[in-house]
């Protein structure tokens, strides 16, 4: 057994170093799908978080609580709901996106939206409220003042985006349910690792797991380094 694991590691490293086609293709798709999902969640999450962080309105606490509660949403449950929506009998079945990368992107984007919104909101809230008044007294309009606050909270925003991406690329439930792990089309790191391990193809699984860990840690470390240099 011990030998099998060591063997698996060695073969995994060979696969990575030789630039194996399958390994590269799956890794690339994972980054592309989760990267797009992150962009999408930022696209709609950033304005929502800015409003939640800066404006005081009725129902703000309820909305914030809702996003916080959804932070721990089980991926399989969300995957099932999305499957039902995307399936031919579902309300948006006519789009025929089930088992395709767009479905995976939308699914992941929805999954990570609570993270994007909650984390960016608290990053904005942590900024001294006087910054907005400061920008205004220096001549900024309401929008320009909000941008100034957003800029001040940039390190928190970047952290939120990183966390969102990490959650997306590491999750299994949603991509499995709406992507289906079709080889060469919708298979990504997590789905392939799960499937190949079951099939006993241990070295490919290890190779992909190493890559997954590398992506997540390299991204986190480099973001950290960039932030430190800036302050």
């Amino acid at each position, binding site marked *: 057994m011990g030998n099998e694991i060591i063997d698996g590691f060695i073969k995994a490293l060979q696969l990575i170093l030789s630039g194996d086609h399958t390994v590269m293709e799956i890794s690339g798709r994972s980054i592309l799908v989760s990267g797009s999902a992150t962009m999408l969640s930022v696209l709609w999450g950033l304005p929502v978080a800015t409003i939640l962080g800066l404006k005081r309105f009725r129902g703000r606490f309820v909305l914030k609580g809702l996003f916080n509660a959804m932070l721990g949403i089980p991926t399989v449950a969300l995957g099932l709901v999305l499957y039902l929506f995307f399936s031919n009998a579902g309300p948006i079945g006519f789009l025929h996106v089930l088992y395709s990368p767009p479905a995976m992107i939308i699914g992941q984007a929805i999954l990570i939206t609570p993270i994007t919104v909650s984390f960016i909101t608290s990053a904005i809230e942590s900024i001294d409220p*006087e*910054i907005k*008044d*400061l920008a*205004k*007294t*220096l*001549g*900024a309009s309401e929008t320009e003042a909000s941008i*100034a606050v957003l800029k001040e909270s940039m390190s928190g925003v970047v952290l939120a985006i990183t966390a969102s991406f990490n959650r997306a690329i590491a999750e299994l439930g949603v991509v499995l349910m709406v992507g289906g792990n079709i080889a060469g089309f919708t298979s990504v790191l997590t789905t392939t690792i799960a499937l190949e391990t079951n099939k006993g193809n241990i070295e490919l699984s290890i190779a992909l797991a190493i890559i997954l860990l590398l992506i997540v840690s390299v991204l986190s470390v480099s973001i950290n380094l960039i932030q430190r240099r800036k302050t």
Partner: protein
Amino acid sequence: MKNIIELENITKTYGNITALDHVSLKIRQGEIFTIAGPNGSGKTTMLKIMAFIDTPTSGEIHFNGVKVGDENRSQIRTKCTMVFQKTALFNTTVYKNIAYGLKLRGFSKKEIDERVKDVLGFVKLDGYEKRFAKKISGGEQQRVSLARALVLDTELLLLDEPTANLDPKNMSIIEETVSRVNRERKNTAVMATHNLFQAETITKRAALLLGGKIVEVGTAQEIFRTPSKHLTSFARLENVFSGTSRILKEGTSLIDVGDGVEIEAALRKSGKVSVFVRPEDIILSRKPISSSARNVFKGRIVEISDLESVVRLRVDAGKQFVVQITKRSFNEMQLNVRSEVFLTFKASSVHVV
């Protein structure tokens, strides 16, 4: 003289709390005006309303004779700028902090460079452009805040306790800069402070704000030299004595404040009075000095408090007096608790509360 800003019946409430209560005030063009008052009296709220970053609950504001409303507020806001008490800085370089308002106003890079350099010279921070604003000392940060406001050359400058918590060196740089800018550019400045000494030295007119209401408006001299009950209530004036006064034939009054202490005052008043003497108006000496001053008391030091550049001493001379002297005098005189000293002050340094 023309008024730059007029507040008429301004009230501001936050929920159940009334921060400003029917405040009316006219600020003249080109003056340095002080709003004095204790913490929580509404000074900051008043400045924020005058800076148009907060709106009153009721009341009217006129700026250069024009009534300010929702339609013109943001445009008029660019003619004023405010320096906050708690130094607020953008998390970037000194240069970018100061350039922010200029960029919004569409100045060219070259113009911005020049103005930033000039204004840094003004606040004695030459060459600080590339330093990180949050990594310089507190006093320097406050000077950056001031520079960032001054660089805009607005008609009205609002300063919220600009020297609170600063050491004497930074304090005097800020005071000098405010006075100099007012002198050279004729811009109007309104400063909130609880430092009465500062209020008196650099401003001509002042208002006293207590509990959201303006209780006095007048020249700084009127307000601070002959303090009313309002002022004493928040300034916690020291050396306040009450007693019975009788008019002497020389024209002054002698006030018996008890414990064998009689204070001669340059006023004509008999009966019950309360008077005070400023700690810095009392001369402290080891031996009795011969002078024109009418009041001389012998006593012992009972308490010494070191306030950086000055030293405050509590002297028991029948009644306890607080005396303020410079640190240098304190060291030269080699004073200690229990040292025997003489206190001397003029009859005209005795003020009625």
